[in-house]
């Protein structure tokens, strides 16, 4: 009697063919993107979305063409940060066209479609069992958005990931197949945050390596709320207590930038950041932005599409 491996195809649906076709569609859609940079953490509430927008601003100011994809489908915040709430998504000739800010940064976020306080509800016929498939469906929807959007020619596509160590690893596994993906992990100076981020970094380590070999590179960390930015004196003052000697939680990644808490920026997060010069509190992101743009050119030549 024939075994599974003796039979070619699945008799009709060609599920494997569909999965392959979707992977090709994603590759085609991303063909003009120099590199993808995922901004994650593992820990919630550390300012991933703020850092993502801040990095986009730094990239744009450095001359980069950048788009943000808000991968937190059920907790979107980029539309509000960008001031693009309520902007319709327009179907173009080659897919969805993301709304764009005055400074050229395009943002694709469910927050443009979802009214505040309205969750993304997946209808179900298996009530009470949603935990078994929700994560899979979220990733499938994310893949469909990747494949169905006209990203155009970009230097960097920034991905604002949802919180949680497990989800970060799930996204990392999926994204690593796309190649040219860098991960930036956001943390607070607190021991609680650093502990979670240290664990997430350990979970990502087996997936990461030199970009040309693994397709996923752990770029480093950004420390958010690294002190309090006093506009009056231009000084950064401590916000979190320093860890006692010997109690620091080491992170297995380079610290790429430190961003102080700035009340004015916090207020802009609710109102939408206007276009304009990069605020002083975000200047530490400039070297990272320049590094990403410089590496993009090389990787475009080296990484096969």
């Amino acid at each position, binding site marked *: 009697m024939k075994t599974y491996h003796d039979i070619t195809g699945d*008799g009709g*649906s060609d599920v494997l063919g569909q999965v392959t076709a979707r992977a090709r569609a994603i590759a085609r859609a991303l063909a003009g993107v120099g590199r993808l940079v995922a901004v994650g953490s593992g820990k919630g509430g550390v300012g991933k979305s703020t850092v993502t927008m801040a990095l986009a601003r730094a990239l744009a100011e450095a001359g980069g063409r950048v788009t943000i994809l808000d991968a937190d489908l059920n907790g979107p915040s980029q539309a509000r940060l960008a001031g693009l709430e309520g902007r319709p998504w*327009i*179907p*173009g000739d080659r897919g969805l*066209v993301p709304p764009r800010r005055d400074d050229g940064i395009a943002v694709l976020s469910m927050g443009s479609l979802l009214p505040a306080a309205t969750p993304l509800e997946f209808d179900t*016929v*298996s009530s009470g069992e949603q935990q078994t498939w929700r994560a*899979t469906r979220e990733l499938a929807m994310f893949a469909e958005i990747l494949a169905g959007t006209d990203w155009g020619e970009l230097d960097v596509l920034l991905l604002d990931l949802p919180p949680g160590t497990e989800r970060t690893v799930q996204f990392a596994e999926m994204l690593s197949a796309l190649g040219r993906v860098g991960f930036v992990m956001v943390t607070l100076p607190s021991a609680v945050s650093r502990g979670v981020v240290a664990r997430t970094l350990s979970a990502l380590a087996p997936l990461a390596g030199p970009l040309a070999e693994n397709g996923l590179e752990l770029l480093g960390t950004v420390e958010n709320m690294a002190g309090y930015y006093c506009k009056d004196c231009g000084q950064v003052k401590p916000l979190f207590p320093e860890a006692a000697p010997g109690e620091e939680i080491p992170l297995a990644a380079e610290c790429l930038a430190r961003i102080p808490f700035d009340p004015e920026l916090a207020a802009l997060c609710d109102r939408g950041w206007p276009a304009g010069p990069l605020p002083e509190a975000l200047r530490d992101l400039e070297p990272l932005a320049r590094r990403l743009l410089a590496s993009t050119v090389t990787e475009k030549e080296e990484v096969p599409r």
Partner: protein
Amino acid sequence: MKFLCVSCDEPMKLQTVDNSGGGSLSVVYACPRCDHQIAMLTNPLETEMVQSLGVKIGPGEGAGAQAPVAAAGSEAVNETGAPTSGSGCPFSGMVAQMQAEAASDGPQWTAEALSRLDNIPELVRPMAKQGIEHYARTEGLAEIDEEVLEHARGRFGM
């Protein structure tokens, strides 16, 4: 998953898919040699597990029978933009509410403009459609054609 006709030692071929059974799929396979048929019946959880992968279950093009059953969250969209079944579009409840609120004499889509919706992810089509209709109503437009889409694109800096 594959099915084998044990008597003939022949892979069975997918014939029809019916998802009208309250979350259950009825998938019929037949042996191409002896015509023996079997039906695989899934429970709602099994159905959603498969559909959450974002694939479609059903005969491929040229296999005859019927169109594949769309994955949950990517079911067909009828001419009003609303999902034709309640099996998975994350916006179905919201779209239904918006439709109820919208005037019945809303803007009409030309075939060319409507075909552009095929270029975007199925999951967000209903909401994208509603957003453009809202824009058209705001602009006092009775018809949505490709020119209106381009105008909206320019208006929002895309």
